């Protein structure tokens, strides 16, 4: 299973110049609740997925009003720093979109 099978939004974006945030908005409340209780995204699994350190994950936050899960991490470099690849941080969702899991 991939997130594209059960979510209508999978996106990334800067949250200020020093943080990057990922939003998954699930198709419905049932799927959202099942996904959260399955603990598919944990600090450990997300750190592996993005090859980052667990301590750089600032929060994994369910938000029921939007049937959404938010993951906020330390941006690898501050936005626009030399060596930048994605000033707005809006195209960093690929690993999340392609993640495979049992559901």
């Amino acid at each position, binding site marked *: 299973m991939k997130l594209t099978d059960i979510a209508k*939004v999978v996106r990334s*974006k*800067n*949250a*200020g*110049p*020093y*943080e*990057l*945030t990922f*939003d998954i*908005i699930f198709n419905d409340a049932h799927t959202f609740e099942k996904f959260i209780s399955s603990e598919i995204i944990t600090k450990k699994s997300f750190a592996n997925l*993005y*090859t*980052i350190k667990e301590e*750089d994950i*600032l*929060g994994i*936050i369910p*938000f029921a*009003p*939007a*049937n*959404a899960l*938010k993951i*906020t991490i*330390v*941006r*690898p*470099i*501050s*936005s*626009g*720093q*030399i*060596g*930048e*690849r*994605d*000033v*707005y*941080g809006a*195209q*960093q969702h*690929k*690993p999340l979109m392609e993640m495979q899991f049992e559901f």
Partner: protein
Amino acid sequence: MKEMRILSPTAILGYGFPESSFEAGMAQKPHIIAVDAGSTDPGPYYLGSGNCFVDRAGTKRDLTFMLKAAIKENIPLIIGTAGGSGARDHLQRDVEIIKEIAKENNLSFKIAVIPSDINKNTVLEALKKGNIAPLYPAPMPTEEEILNSTNIVAQMGAEPILAALNQNINIIITGRAYDPVVFSALAIKDGFDTGLALHLGKILECAAIAATPGSGSDCMLGILREDHFELKALNEERKCTTTSVAAHTLYEKSDPAKLHGPGGILDLTETTFEQNTEETVIVRGTKFIKGEYYIKLEAARKLGMRTVSFAATADHIMIKEIPTILQSIREKIKANFTDLKKEDYFIDFKIYGTSGVSLFGLQSAEPPTVGQNFSDYKFTSANNSDVSINKFNLAEPPAVGGGEAAIIIDVVANTKELSKALCSFARSTMLHFGYAGRISTAGNLAFPFSPSDFDGGEVYEFSVYALLKADPLEHFPLEVLEL
């Protein structure tokens, strides 16, 4: 029932809106028109250089509609974070545009201009006194970073705007302001709930982005009442749904339930989103929890000058050899420019079709200091080797892009001349590089442009992103102009 109608014409001043939507908004007899003009999203260049990221013509077009309507109806028009970043140059540009519009349309009015620039000495003094708090994961600013910054601005809260409204000034333009406050200041003045007013402002600052289908260049109306607010899109193609509004609450935020701002936290833990009519949503339960008063400081400083070259290849043998080629080019630069110290330049190769987009698997070393250590600041992969060598795993030619790869050579150096010279050298070396297995011996690169290299201008980085303990009014003087 007591209510306040707040019209937000567009997500960023200058992004535009359909005239029909604006008229539909004015037909609802709004008590105020407000617009946010800024963002840190486009990166540090705009704040650092004083240039505006939104075009002058677009800004003038939007402002003309808003000014004429506000003056005709005798309602406030509040513009926040003028010019995109809100430093003195940005504010000045938008004030000039307003003067032009006033002259061209024979409008005469009083305008309050509230700058948000913070003197370097003020920040240094605050740093010494322990009145600066870091905003993790941004680092605590150092004395050197403060001194090297070109523009330092602070995000004002609602109070400086309230001060202008209390003088009965209707047209207000500010430097850097916390995004929601231009929408919520009048409501706070009139005694509406601060939590609801700020939450409504937080949504209205992006105008119709919170509707579905979303748009950054269309109007939205917020109706604030005693214990809730209602959101209404003003284009019949769009509507507000609980999903679209709740989803927007997540957008660009670290934590959707706790939003930090000047003087406190907006707490959404008990917020509910309820579909009202088919097109409108009602929001309740958001609270403002007062805390110590801090304002957010933002600054940028110059790192150097950039030259870029754009090229591409369709040769899978070449693509496979790119890591080796790049390593070799770096060595040839050192061998050819023997006077060059490693701190004089930074070179990066962005390889599109294979690895040009991802920020991951890359780790920065210490950030560079101005004019120093450019080459110490190189991206390293997880195993600490040079990314340009080990990052790529090109056993197979990439499927995306039909086996093509685009290459941007990005050089930042202390001077424009040096960045041009190094970019030119890297480009010509790459063009004729004799890599292993090469069969295409006439040239390695397809250039879409002549000239192939482009002046990328000044390069900046964010240098201060921290909190300053402050009185709500002390850093935001009010200037009143009669136009």
